[in-house]
């Protein structure tokens, strides 16, 4: 499973892309796994305005994840 972090989340974690094998079966299981490795990052993933995308579609709440999924964590966005 490929996990991507954007914006301040990538700076906080010290990585922007990482592969997780074996792949957790759900989004909440992935978040719990990350929180176990890095408590500050785990907390930030549940922070205000942070969204998750699975295979480039925004998801809400918990969802099942295929082993081949691409999961991205997206802090508040700002372009322009």
């Amino acid at each position, binding site marked *: 499973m490929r996990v991507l972090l954007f*914006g*301040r989340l990538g700076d906080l974690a010290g990585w922007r892309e990482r592969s997780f094998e074996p792949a957790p079966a759900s989004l909440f299981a992935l978040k719990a796994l990350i929180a176990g490795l890095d408590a500050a990052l785990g907390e930030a993933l549940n922070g205000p305005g942070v969204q998750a995308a699975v295979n*480039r579609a925004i998801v809400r709440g918990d969802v099942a994840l295929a082993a081949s999924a691409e999961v*991205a964590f*997206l802090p508040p*966005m*700002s372009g*322009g």
Partner: protein
Amino acid sequence: MIRLTTETFDPGAELTRFCAGRTESGAVASFVGIARGEGGAATALELEAYPGFTEAEIGKMVEAATARFSLHDALVIHRHGAIAPGEPIVMVATAASHRREAFEACDCLMDYLKSRAPFWKKEHGPAGARWVEPTARDLDDIARWD
């Protein structure tokens, strides 16, 4: 058309191209956003995009604006990577039959890009770097269109 680019671009040339051959549009509105130096406090902007996802999300918004404002066409050019003060960051151009629709669609698309398009913006300066998130004003601006 939606274009993400790490290279600078020429807004005048883009606008000329966008206007060319429009015998029925009647109205083209455009906006160019330029990186501010903040009197030396900002030495560079760094924009991160999520390739594939960012274009697709902007595409959905352009599609919605096209239907809502009866646009004939829309252009969005957005930089990512490193941007120096004075360089263009973003350009939006809209074509419609009449000016009101063109102006409003351009305004709406820019409000969307400021607070909902998948970009993450870091401002670098002598005092260090900080991630810029939408301001209260940006959120009020986008709420006008909901």
